């Protein structure tokens, strides 16, 4: 006697496999997008670090030379 639920289970499992494949593809595309964005944001981070260093050096220079003023 054949189990009537076996076919149902197999069909659902095949659907699940299909879904997992599509999901894997979409996640890989999302990963690529995020990698591109990260590569651009590293440059932005470096710019921010340079700005911060410039601010620190400017502050130090103004303090040492005595040209620092209060904010308006």
């Amino acid at each position, binding site marked *: 006697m054949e189990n009537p639920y076996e076919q149902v289970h197999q069909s*659902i499992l095949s659907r*699940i496999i299909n879904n997992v494949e*599509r*999901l894997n593809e*979409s996640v890989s595309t999302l990963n690529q997008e995020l990698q591109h964005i990260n590569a*651009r944001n590293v440059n932005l981070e470096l710019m921010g670090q340079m700005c911060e*260093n*410039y601010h620190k*050096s400017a502050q130090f*220079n103004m303090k040492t030379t005595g040209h620092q003023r209060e904010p308006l």
Partner: protein
Amino acid sequence: MAEESLERLDQEITLHLQQIDSNLSYCFSKITQDIIPHVTKYGAVCDEVMDSCNWLKVMFQQAGNLQIDSVARPGSPEDQQALESHVSEGSLQTLFPGKPRVSADSSSVMAPPVLQKPTLSADTGDITTTTGQVLQLPDSSDEERADDEHTNDTVKSSIGDDADGSTMQRQRRKRKMSLLLQQQFGSSSSSAVPSPAQLTAPPPDSNLDSSPLRKTDVGQSESTKKLAAPPGTVIHFSTRQMTQDSLDE
């Protein structure tokens, strides 16, 4: 009883499988329809931010050039700052060409530090190589002149420092050249030491007479150097050294 329990278990299994399937499909639709468009929008915004901050990059690079060349020498904290900015510039140099959009600007901007680094290395290398080979010095000085002209064209504010440094280094090289020539001719010449001959001869005549003597010495002792470079340069430096010696004496 066993059949009923089996049937119930199968129904539960189908229900769980359907739930898993629906969850996976929901995940897929969520990622493809909601997340990826927003992420692409975010990437576009980051691109815009990067483009609008491009002037900052140019400013820091040119400012870093000036700091590295002239300003970074005296002050210690400024020196550290310049080093930090230089390090960040180095990482930027490695990072920016990977990006396709900014590469056209970055390649034109990146050129000055790449050109100015070899001058520093060439300066130190020439100083070290003066002990070994003498006749490569005028070539290096010419290169340094060319580089100095280039830097003067690019950066106009650092003319005085570079010119002073180059003149000082040229004078040092000329002194080293003269010292090496003295050592070589004092050792290689089989006759008496040339300095007594200079002492006996009157100063203007000694200049005129000694140059062919020096030329013959060069031709006799070292033929490879005569082949390597014209002897006129060597005589030129030797006469200057002789005038300096005569003035000192």
